[in-house]
């Protein structure tokens, strides 16, 4: 028997038909959808008189443009309100479960899907959102798709696709003090570039990945798209099964046992081959900070803003000059001399419970620097409630952070959470593109602990100066 990667195993189990032209028809086991990329797809169904083929495999979330303030107030933005109402109407018409604004399980689709047990190892999963690769952390083969493809999956529960190539991203070594999964993925993108994984399904493996929690692996998989990857995946292990067990939609009883048996056959076989391999030694990784306008423009916190003149390639030099102009940065400035106006802890990259706990350990008993606006936007309402049970909301609010309801928020700035022109933000999100967090806003991507420390000091600091694993009281009684 030939040795296979997990990607090949899942791919082969789901291919219904291969055509001579190289495209394959793939069955899709799970379809997650949201208010922004679905309306035109539903309209396509309506226009062609089609139905959603398997509504029980399809789940709708509201996340991209939802307000993160008081949910009982009317939505001020007319167009956002319209999109939200449209999704409600479409979900009802087509018989799809929707986690609406008032649902206790509302949240960012890539946080809520896994925590609800909708994401399972070995399934194919799609969503009309590029960060769908996140779900690969649980051993699912997950693709971000466009709106035409959303309509296609609604109507047929399948997708036409050319088989992507496979890429092994081996991460070895123990993550040193202060370095997180976020730093590991920023480091990888810095090394291979924003187009380095185009056309590939990245499989993360190696001792560093094995040692990571499922939530850390989600951070890794989430940002594979920022290296251009078609998707990302990690072979599942006991940590994954524990993560899923007893979640609301997890298989139960005999089905759980059956599922486990089949999941244990998924991990990549020894000796399996990849089309491409890269490997990284993470044992000396430092906290990373982006300085430019794409996630590959990254340096370590101990470094300085690079000088475009040091780039040999003329087009890269031009890109660096443009980025520095946009970011309002001078070459040679030490990263720790850069001041921040806003700190955003949120997004499908880094707003899960473990992210919030780590940030709270930095924040506990301290104050946000004067003049800095700092906000925590939990990845889902479930994360929010779990955090509140630990008293994290008190820790953040006592320090001067805003404690919000869940949504994509300032990662994409489609709701009212956005930067003012010229404002500089330490953000735990995934994209530092021009104007991403608000027109003229300047984004620096960092880990949650780096963001927390930046909030306290009003500038970037080397988070290793802090005691990261200090004991803080993690319980709160609502009495």
């Amino acid at each position, binding site marked *: 028997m030939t040795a296979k990667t997990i990607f090949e195993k899942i791919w082969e189990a789901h291919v219904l038909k291969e055509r001579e032209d190289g495209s394959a028809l793939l*069955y899709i086991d799970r379809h997650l959808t949201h208010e922004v*990329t679905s309306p035109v797809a539903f309209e396509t169904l309506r226009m062609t008189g089609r139905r959603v083929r398997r509504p029980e495999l399809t789940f709708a979330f509201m996340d*991209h443009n939802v307000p993160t303030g008081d949910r009982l107030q009317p939505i001020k933005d007319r167009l956002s309100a319209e999109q939200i109402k449209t999704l409600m109407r479409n979900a009802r018409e087509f018989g799809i479960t929707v986690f609406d604004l008032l649902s206790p399980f509302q949240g960012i689709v890539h946080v809520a899907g896994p925590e609800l047990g909708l994401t*399972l190892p070995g399934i194919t999963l799609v969503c009309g959102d590029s960060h769908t690769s996140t779900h690969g952390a649980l051993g699912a083969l997950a693709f971000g798709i466009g709106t035409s493809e959303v309509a296609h999956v609604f109507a*047929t529960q399948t997708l036409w696709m050319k088989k992507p190539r496979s890429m092994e991203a081996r991460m070895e070594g123990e993550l040193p003090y202060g370095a997180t999964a976020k730093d590991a993925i920023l480091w990888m993108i810095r090394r291979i570039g924003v187009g380095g994984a185009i056309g590939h399904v990245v499989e993360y493996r190696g001792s560093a990945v094995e040692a990571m929690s499922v939530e850390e692996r989600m951070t890794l998989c989430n940002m594979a798209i920022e290296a251009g990857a078609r998707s990302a995946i990690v072979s599942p292990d006991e940590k994954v099964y524990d993560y899923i067990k007893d979640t609301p939609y997890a298989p139960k009883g005999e089905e759980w046992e059956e599922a486990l048996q*089949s999941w244990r056959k998924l991990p990549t076989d020894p000796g399996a081959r990849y089309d491409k391999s890269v490997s990284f030694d993470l044992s000396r990784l430092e906290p990373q900070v982006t300085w430019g306008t794409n996630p590959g423009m990254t340096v370590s916190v101990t470094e300085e803003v690079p000088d475009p003149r040091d780039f040999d390639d003329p087009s890269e030099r031009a890109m660096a000059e443009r980025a520095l102009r946009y970011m309002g940065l001078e070459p040679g400035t030490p990263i720790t001399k850069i001041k921040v106006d806003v700190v955003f802890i949120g997004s499908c990259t880094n707003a899960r419970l473990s992210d919030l706990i780590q940030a709270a350990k930095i924040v506990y008993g301290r104050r946000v620097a004067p003049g800095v606006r700092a906000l925590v936007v939990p990845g889902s309402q479930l994360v929010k409630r779990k955090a509140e049970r630990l008293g994290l909301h008190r820790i953040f609010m006592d320090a001067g952070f805003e404690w919000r309801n869940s949504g994509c928020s300032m990662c994409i*700035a489609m709701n009212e959470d956005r930067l003012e022109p010229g404002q500089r933000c330490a953000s735990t999100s995934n994209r530092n593109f021009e104007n991403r967090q608000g027109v003229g806003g300047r984004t620096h991507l960092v880990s949650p602990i780096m963001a927390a420390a930046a909030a306290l000091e009003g500038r970037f600091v080397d988070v290793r100066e802090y005691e990261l694993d200090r004991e803080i009281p993690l319980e709160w009684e609502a009495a």
Partner: protein
Amino acid sequence: MVEPIRVMEGKAAPLKVNDVDTDQIIPAQFLKLLSRKGLGKYAFYRWRYNEDGTPKPGFILDDPRFKDAEILIAGKNFGIGSSRENAVWALLDLGIRCVIAPSFGDIFYNNAAKNGLLCIRLPEDLVERLQDRAMEGDLILRIDLEKQEISGKDIEAIRFDIEPHVKERLLKGLDDITMALLYEEEIKRYEERMPSYIIPKPSRFLHE
């Protein structure tokens, strides 16, 4: 639904920027519009307009020489980032029917194929040469998809590669959904043997 493409001829405009993400092609605020029509005026919005809506000079497609361009010659990694198909709709609405670049974001590339926007990958040095030539403002390219060939005045014919399934789709303007439903039997067979644990069954109470 999608117009078939066999041969197209049009003015080429150079966009000498690498890593143009879909946030640049169409900013998120315009994703709230519930239609795929009329997005051209928002294409590259932040590059073309100030925050108060006044035009920003200097964007190549606003240059009178390139206003009627139908072919965009872009830098590498064009269309990376967000999956928003609105990026493709905006380009089409702007009159762009073909993008030539050294490489494309995967999701953008798929979205383009589904909407009849032809994306052609060429080696970087060749793209740069075409960009320089297009900068003169009078480069008309003829693209023959059937023959996979680009030609133009003073330009030696350029062969390009394209995945057969993308080519066929573009040539015939095929409707994917209809094509997939030809395989109804295969779909049903999979669904019959699909393990039941894959079908979500919520707990009686969604507890935490």
